[in-house]
Each structure stands twice: as structure tokens, then as C-alpha cells.
């Protein structure tokens, strides 16, 4: 079997960081399957850049990818990828980390994936302080299945399953991570990609459960139904609804309702799961 670039894309100059992706290494060209205007491509690019800048050994930082819009992201990710079932990434990563403590799994999740079907694993992964990174790509909707209500969809939004704009109170993943016991927590959006890169670098060197949420626009599913049809509309909607954490400190809960508080929320040190497990194994050696 031989591969060539998709039809009509033979003469496109590859993206400077495209050469870092696995797809490029394997097939000679990078491509994404994301919709037009989706923010996930830029997030993947940021991850590629961090991998290149940090000069990481790709096999030691495996990506655990679950099921969601971002499932096709491995085509533009820089490392080895293991795809699991819907929402089970953190449980799988716990097994991976315990079987080979040298690895640092990076589990990539969507909002439905992490906050709906896989919430249980998220809480307990953070509680155990498994030495891993969880990246939440939050597009506020179930994109791949056709735009249904997600646990993060803002109150009163129109989705495929809320045609009368009946809404449910959305969940705040950062607060959830805090009470569960994560040791590094940050939230960014697609307009603060450089900050996301800094956070991601920090998380790579952080020992413990790191959680980074990144809010992205979804013009195809969320935008079209909620009067934000262009990529820039969604981008600006998120940007205007985001408040830096140092500003948010002086604001009342009423003012903060429905806003994304972006920034670094927590950075502490606590013994990880492997620290405790290895202590026991060492103790029992003699």
C-alpha cells in the first residue's frame, strides 16, 4: 500500500509544525478532519510546538485519546496515541502509569467524554493524584453526534435535544477538579493559545494530576444553532465571556455567572499514586 496526499491538496505547503506530526512522518503530509473554523486544529498545533520546543521523547509521553470530535486529532498530534472507549481514558491511563511508571500519559478529553460519561474516572484520577495530564477540549456541545446538549452547554442555548432552549445548569470542570484533588489546574480558551502552551509545558514538568481546560468555538454545531455561525463569532463570544482570574477575584458571583474564568487556578505539590505504591514495594523488598 502506498499513500499520497488527499486529492486537491498535493501542492499545499505543509505547516511549519506539520512536519512534527505522526501523520507527516508516516505518510508525508499532515491533514486534519476538523470542520472549518474549529479551534481544535490550533490546539493540536500548540501541542506539536511544545513537543518540539521541549524536545520530548515521544514514546514516554503517550497520548490517550477517547471518543469525541477530537478523536481524529492523532493525525496532527506529535506522539504515540492509544485510542480508548468513550470516557475511559483516565482509567486506562491509571493502568498504563502503574504498569510503567516512566511514562507520563496525556489523556485528551471532550466535554461529554470527561464531564458526562467519564466523570467518575475524572474524580478518582484526581483524588488518587495519578501522575498524568488531562486536557479537556470544551466546545460546549456534542459535535460529532450532531449537536446535542452537553454538560457544559450554556444555560438557554439551542441544541438538537433542546429545541425549545430548555437548559440545564452547566458544570464547571475547574471547580470539579479542585474539589477532587487535582494538583495543577488551568483554564484557557482559543484566544489564549500561548498561555495554554505555557501551562502545558508546566504540566509536563509537574508531578501529579494536571488538568487543563481549553474552551473552543464550534461554528458547525454550536454556532449555527445559536447565532454564531462564523468561526470568529464563536471565537469572540468565548473571548468576551472570559475573565482573567486576577480580575475575577474582585467580582461578585452574579457578575461571574456564565463567564469563563481563565488562568492558572491551582499549582500545589502532593505525593502521587506511584509515590505511595512504590514506597510499599520498596518496603517489602527485604
Amino acid at each position, binding site marked *: 500500500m502506498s499513500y499520497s496526499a488527499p486529492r486537491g491538496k498535493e501542492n499545499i505547503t505543509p505547516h511549519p509544525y506539520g512536519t512534527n506530526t505522526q501523520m507527516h512522518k508516516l505518510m508525508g503530509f499532515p491533514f486534519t478532519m476538523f470542520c472549518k473554523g474549529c479551534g481544535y486544529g490550533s490546539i493540536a498545533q500548540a501541542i506539536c510546538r511544545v513537543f518540539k520546543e521541549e524536545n520530548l521523547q515521544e514514546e514516554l509521553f503517550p497520548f490517550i485519546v477517547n471518543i469525541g470530535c477530537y478523536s481524529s486529532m492523532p*493525525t496532527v498530534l506529535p*506522539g504515540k496515541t492509544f485510542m480508548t472507549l468513550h470516557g475511559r481514558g483516565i482509567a*486506562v491511563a491509571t493502568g498504563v502509569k502503574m504498569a510503567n511508571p516512566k511514562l507520563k500519559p496525556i489523556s485528551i478529553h471532550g466535554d461529554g467524554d470527561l464531564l458526562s460519561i467519564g466523570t467518575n474516572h475524572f474524580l478518582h484520577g484526581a483524588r488518587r493524584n495519578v501522575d498524568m495530564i488531562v486536557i479537556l477540549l470544551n466546545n460546549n456541545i456534542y459535535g460529532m453526534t450532531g449537536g446535542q446538549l452537553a454538560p457544559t452547554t450554556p444555560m438557554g442555548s439551542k441544541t438538537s435535544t433542546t429545541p425549545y432552549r430548555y437548559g440545564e445548569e452547566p458544570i464547571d470542570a475547574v471547580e470539579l477538579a479542585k474539589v477532587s484533588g487535582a494538583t495543577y489546574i488551568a483554564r484557557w480558551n482559543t484566544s489564549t493559545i500561548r498561555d495554554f502552551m505555557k501551562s502545558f509545558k508546566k504540566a509536563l514538568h509537574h508531578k501529579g494530576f494536571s488538568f487543563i481546560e481549553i474552551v473552543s468555538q464550534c461554528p458547525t454545531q454550536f454556532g449555527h444553532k445559536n447565532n454564531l455561525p462564523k468561526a470568529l463569532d464563536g471565537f469572540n463570544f468565548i473571548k468576551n465571556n472570559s475573565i482573567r482570574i486576577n480580575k475575577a477575584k474582585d467580582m461578585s458571583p452574579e457578575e461571574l455567572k456564565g463567564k469563563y474564568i481563565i488562568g492558572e487556578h491551582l499549582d500545589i505539590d502532593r505525593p502521587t499514586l506511584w509515590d505511595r505504591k512504590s514506597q510499599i514495594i520498596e518496603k517489602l523488598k527485604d
Partner: protein
Amino acid sequence: MNKDEILKRSVYTGTHLLEGNVAMAEGCIAAGCRFFAGYPITPQSEVPEHMAKRLPEVGGVFMQMEDEIASISAVVGATLTGKKAMSSTSGPGFALMQETLSWANLIEMPLVVANVQRVGPGSGVVSLPTHGDITQIKRGGNGEYEVIAIAPNSCQELFDLSIVAFNLAEIWRVPTFILSDAWLGHMREKVVIPEPEEIKKRIVPRPEYIPAENETEGRPQIYTTANKDFTEFNIPAFPPLGSKHFPYWWISLTHSQISGMITETPSVADNTNMTINYKISKNEAKISIVKRYQLDDAEIAIITYGTPSRSALEAVNECRKEGIKVGLLRLVTVWPIAETAIREVAEKVKQIIVPEMNLGQIAEQIERFAFHTDGQRIPVHRVSHTAILHTPKEIIDKIKEIIQ
């Protein structure tokens, strides 16, 4: 700790009085299990309890996860990273695992799950035995797949066959199941555990991935391939996660068996399903283990597995004393169904009795093969209970009833 020290520690040599669940846990550790993830559920809770105590001694990791879904997911993760790993559960927990087990079958993960069955449906009766999960083991998940399941009938066998279960998982690269039940798990019997050197000879280690031998066009060959008629199978070793040779995108979707890549081509998806199914079902004669007893001149055959085979053995001995020609075929491996052995027995006998702790889940399978060579159908009688272990008398009464 060096390898010899670990081996020595992993084998609990000697003659002991062990509970069934503990004997099984010891068997798994001796077989090389170094990762266990589980969730407490009666009647299997002694397995995680014993694993929590023993695994750190041999450098292994015990995890009590948040639920059975997480347990089996962690086991898949650990297996993929190169450890021999297992989980254990009972009926309701086993139902929760099905989604992941279906996936583990698709990606051919050599893991082991012990199901200490309890009466169902629903929450059931926690302390009574059953074999109600027999069909669920193979038909519980989405899609179609074939598994290997082993049914021990004593504490000694729970130890010995646990090693066999791990070996079969490695040889055929398939999730393998140990079928215990509430009574077997809580029974205490004499268990003789041999020297570590003796155990070492019995263990099949995880095959090492050698790039030069396992590559197709420069990419790792991670899945089983078969010839056109599905008669010959090449089951490759897989590169563990964390090694340089791990493929760049190991997917959980239906894939091409050759490239490992996502497919939407009907013929390729068809080939994948056929390969993972026929890998087991067409090699049934090589995989299945049966025990034959007094079958040479038998006119009536008892075919059974697991705990009821103890009552059946007693019934055969009693009947033989009275001059009734009865024999016993014990299915040590329940799945894949031992077609060759059952056909061979069916050709010689006039009637078959199947005592089961369910309403005939294996009897249905046996009916498929219960024919003489001339095509004449032979009757398959069921002695069914769902929560009671058969007494030998009950089986003897049935035998006397059918010969009249």
C-alpha cells in the same frame, strides 16, 4: 530484587488448606500476574483482598478502582503496557465490564478476568452459586467475538487452571475467563503448590516484540492475520506502550488487520471480524481441554463443567456399581465449545444428560452436535437448577428415569 527472588516469592510452595478465591489469586500470581484492578463485590472480595497483600511483595501493583468499568479499563491499559494483568468480579460487575471486554477482544488483548458467579438476575443472591453468566461471557458485549473460558471444579484446580488461563491468553492473544462460583470460591480444600522451578516450566511468558519479524511495510504488525480460508493464523507479539515501536495511532475502532488503520470498507471490516472469531472457533480442537471418564463402553454420557461435575462424577461411580453404563465428559474449557470431543462422544452413546446450574445454556450448544454418524438425533436431557448444586442422587434418578 532479582528475577529468581521474585519467582520464589510469587510461588507459595507447600501443602495448604486454602479458600477457593485465595487459591485462584495464588495461581494468578504464580502465572506472572503483576497488575490487578478490581472492585469489591461478594462473593469474590477475597481475591482483591489477597491480591492487595501479595502483589506488592512481588513488585506488582494492586488497584482498587472506582467501579468495574474502570477496573477492566485499567487492566487493558496495563496489559498494553506489557504487564500480565487481571481483574475479578461477580455477575453484576461482569455486566458492567462488557463494553470494555468487547473492545479488548477487538484489539486482541491477552488479559484474564475471573468471574465468581452469583445468582442473578439483578442483584440476585450474593452467596449462592450459579452458572448463569455462561452465555454473557461470550455474547455479553456489542459485536461478535469468541473467548476462552475455563471452569475449574476444586481449589486445587483453581490454582492450576489459573496458570493455564494466563497461558491460553498469551498463546491466542484473547481475553480469557476463569469461571468460578460462590460455593467454589468460598470452599476450603487442600491445595498442593509445587516448587518455583516446577511452576516456571508451566508458564508461557509474554512474547517479545521483535521489529524485524513483526513488520509489514515498515509498520508494526499488531494484529492477527489469516489466510483466505481462515485455516492458518499468524498471531504476532505486540509492541508495548512506551516502546519505540508502538504504532503512532492504535485505534479502538474496527481496523484493517494488516495496517491497523481505521476502515469503512465493508470487506475489510468483515475480514477483521472473521479473523478474531475464527482464530478461536476454528482452532477449537487445539484450545479446548476435556476430561473423559468411563466413556469407552458408555451408553449414557453426562456432559458437564464446573462444580456440577463433582456431583456427576459421584453419580457415574454409583451407577457403575449398579451396572448401568454411564460415562462422564467434563468440559474444562467451556468456551470455545469442545465440538470435536462432544461429537466423538455423541457418536457412541444413546442419550446425553447435561446437569447445569442454569437452564441449559451449554445444553443448547451440545444439542447442535448430538447426532449419530447416520444423522440420527440423540436426546439431550437437562438437569437444571439456577441456584442449587445438584446432588449425585438427583443425577442418578434422572439416569434411571431415562433408561426405562
